[in-house]
């Protein structure tokens, strides 16, 4: 008496078993394809916006202003002369927006020694207000106090006034080029029609601007790099330290288990809540340290956000270190700290770094906490230290996408590409570091 199936039953059963297997295999393949399609859709969307034909028109052709149309070849005096010639009434506005250190309501009434405190002001004007100055003298203030780069930007936006009248996406630029060109020539007979890559060198090195064609991501990019640097400097040592304590020192007591469970739960708390926490602690309560809505506040808030992720990953990496190595070290008369420092940490380092990479990638793309703690949405100055006001890439992208002019969507797409590239570079360098640690361990 056997319970095994006879040959016929076996064959039928076998077919069914194989069939079930191949159905699952198809399902798994389909899942992969869906994920791939989502990724492709993302890339298509971004690249479609970031490249394409544009119709650009100048208010004044730069070729008439400077030799070869190269504005930046002019000296500061030449640049202010252009401003004086074409935008005479805006000169005081430039002084107010770029140089004044007092409130806008007092700008015209206070003496220049106060309005422009810390700037270079000729002595004979110190007691006068801005209204007392001749336009040429006001322009001279700009020439002496503004950088060449700032002046070039003012001339580019306000005198040359290059305006992109319409932009087309990559798909129509590639597949309906003739039609697009015909429309452009008809609608904008005086405009220049050319293929524009919204992501270009100028875009990387220009600060923000209210004109999409002149705007760049430099300020936001620097802001993001500052934030991520502060975040890692703050969260890495504390996170790894906490992981070492929990994994190597803490006993399996009830309190420690509650702490561990809570660390795990913290990793799942929505980021906007960390933003509120950062607002309360770093921006408000610790204002005397962080100076309010600054890079330092943002970095520390992001640090809090990724701390649980770093702790959890570091704990897992420490737990994965083989006990044989610990025992070998203790067996030679090493103290606990010597064992941790010389054996356990180096062996866990690749895993700890992997966790930190993941956490950093999360932090660099986070937007919600930065909005809550008040990253500036429009700022044209580079951050020059942890206590600067700042903007960051995701904030800049968010702000650009919410502008009415369609061209801002194009530069938002370009900024997304910059963000993705920064992300990839960070990951690549961290992976390189991790591999070096691994190679060192394996000799």
């Amino acid at each position, binding site marked *: 008496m056997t319970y095994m199936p006879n040959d016929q039953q076996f064959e039928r059963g076998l077919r069914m078993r194989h069939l079930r297997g191949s159905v699952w295999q198809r399902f798994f393949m389909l899942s992969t394809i869906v994920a791939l399609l989502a990724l492709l859709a993302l890339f298509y969307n971004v690249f479609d916006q970031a490249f394409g034909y544009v119709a650009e028109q100048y208010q004044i052709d730069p070729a008439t202003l400077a030799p070869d149309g190269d504005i930046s070849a002019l000296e500061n005096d030449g640049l202010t002369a252009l401003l004086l010639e074409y935008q005479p009434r805006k000169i005081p506005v430039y002084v107010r927006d770029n140089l004044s250190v007092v409130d806008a309501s007092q700008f015209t009434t206070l003496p220049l020694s106060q309005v422009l405190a810390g700037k270079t002001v000729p002595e004979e004007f110190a007691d006068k207000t801005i209204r007392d100055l001749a336009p040429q003298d006001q322009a001279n203030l700009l020439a002496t106090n503004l950088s060449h780069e700032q002046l070039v930007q003012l001339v580019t936006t306000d005198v040359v006034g290059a305006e992109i009248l319409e932009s087309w996406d990559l798909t129509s630029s590639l597949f309906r080029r003739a039609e697009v060109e015909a429309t452009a020539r008809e609608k904008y007979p005086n405009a220049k029609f050319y293929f524009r890559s919204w992501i270009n060198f100028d875009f990387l090195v220009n600060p923000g601007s209210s004109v999409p064609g002149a705007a760049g991501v430099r300020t936001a990019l620097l802001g993001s790099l500052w934030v991520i640097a502060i975040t890692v400097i703050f969260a890495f040592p504390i996170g790894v330290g906490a992981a070492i304590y929990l994994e190597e020192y803490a006993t399996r007591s009830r309190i420690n288990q509650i702490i561990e469970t809570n660390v795990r739960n913290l990793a799942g708390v929505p980021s906007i809540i960390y933003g509120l926490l950062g607002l309360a602690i770093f921006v408000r309560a610790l204002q005397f340290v962080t100076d309010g809505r600054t890079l330092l506040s943002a970095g520390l808030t992001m640090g809090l956000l990724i701390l649980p992720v770093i702790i959890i990953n570091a704990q897992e990496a420490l737990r994965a270190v083989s006990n044989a190595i610990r*025992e070998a070290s203790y*067996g*030679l008369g*090493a103290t606990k700290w010597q064992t941790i420092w010389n054996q356990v940490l180096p062996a866990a380092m690749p895993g700890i770094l992997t966790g930190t990479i993941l956490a950093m990638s999360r932090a660099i793309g986070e937007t919600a906490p930065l909005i809550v703690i008040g990253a500036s949405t429009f700022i044209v100055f580079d951050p020059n230290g942890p206590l600067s006001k700042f903007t960051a890439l995701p904030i800049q992208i968010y702000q650009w996408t919410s502008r009415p002019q369609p061209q801002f969507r194009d530069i938002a797409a370009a900024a997304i590409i910059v963000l993705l590239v920064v992300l990839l570079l960070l990951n690549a360098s961290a992976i390189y570091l991790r591999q070096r640690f691994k190679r060192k361990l394996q000799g």
Partner: protein
Amino acid sequence: MTQNGAYAIGLKNVNIFYGEKLAVKDVTLSIANQKITAFIGPSGCGKSTVLRSINRMNDLIPGARVEGEVTFHGQQLYDEKVDAVEVRRRIGMVFQKPNPFPKSIYDNVAYGPRLLGVRSKNKLDEIVERSIKSSYLWDEVKTDLKKSGMALSGGQQQRLCIARTIAVEPEVILMDEPCSALDPIATQAIEELMKDLVKTYTIIIVTHNMQQAQRVSDYTAFYSIRKEEETGGKEKRWGLLVEHNHTEKLFSAPQNEETERYIRGEFG
């Protein structure tokens, strides 16, 4: 029992617990100085547990607890004033699976001395050379001390671990089945090495292999298991020392009937 009457280690009424569970009960045993003592017995009899209590390696296991007296030249090892770190330096250990650090051969051997504060390059060079020579590994690795310890063969790794242990100049070396992961040729090399090391060190070796105990040891301690039915169908098991004698005597004329059955291979 020993000719010169010198004992390195003494265990008196030692009970070892893991949490509430009794692992080894009432072991009383003296380990002869500069001899090789072998611990044999069936799996689960607690011979490794006893071994690891001698250099306080059990301290690392949460909940492990030792009752009774463990002495090293008369000094209580579980006295509050005794630092386990100091104990482990004087009583070194070689493990079942070769476990070199993921570092160079040189750094593996220099690790212990560096822990103790030896920094001078010349001194470290000398210690490394002397230790590797003492473990019969020098000719095989002398040109390649920068190579990773992990890149050596199993037998070489185990000899590296022995070199690493003797680099801190312990008095006793505990070996927990040091050959169980090795092939016969590597095993033979380790056994010859042990016979040489015993001129300087006291050695205790846990082994599953009765032939090995007979080949290398001067004394043999045989451990076995006792069971007791508890209410609820559970079973309580613990290990205990059955017989301890000169290796020759224990294998030729066992005093205990259980020892005799074990060495005849009736259980194990």
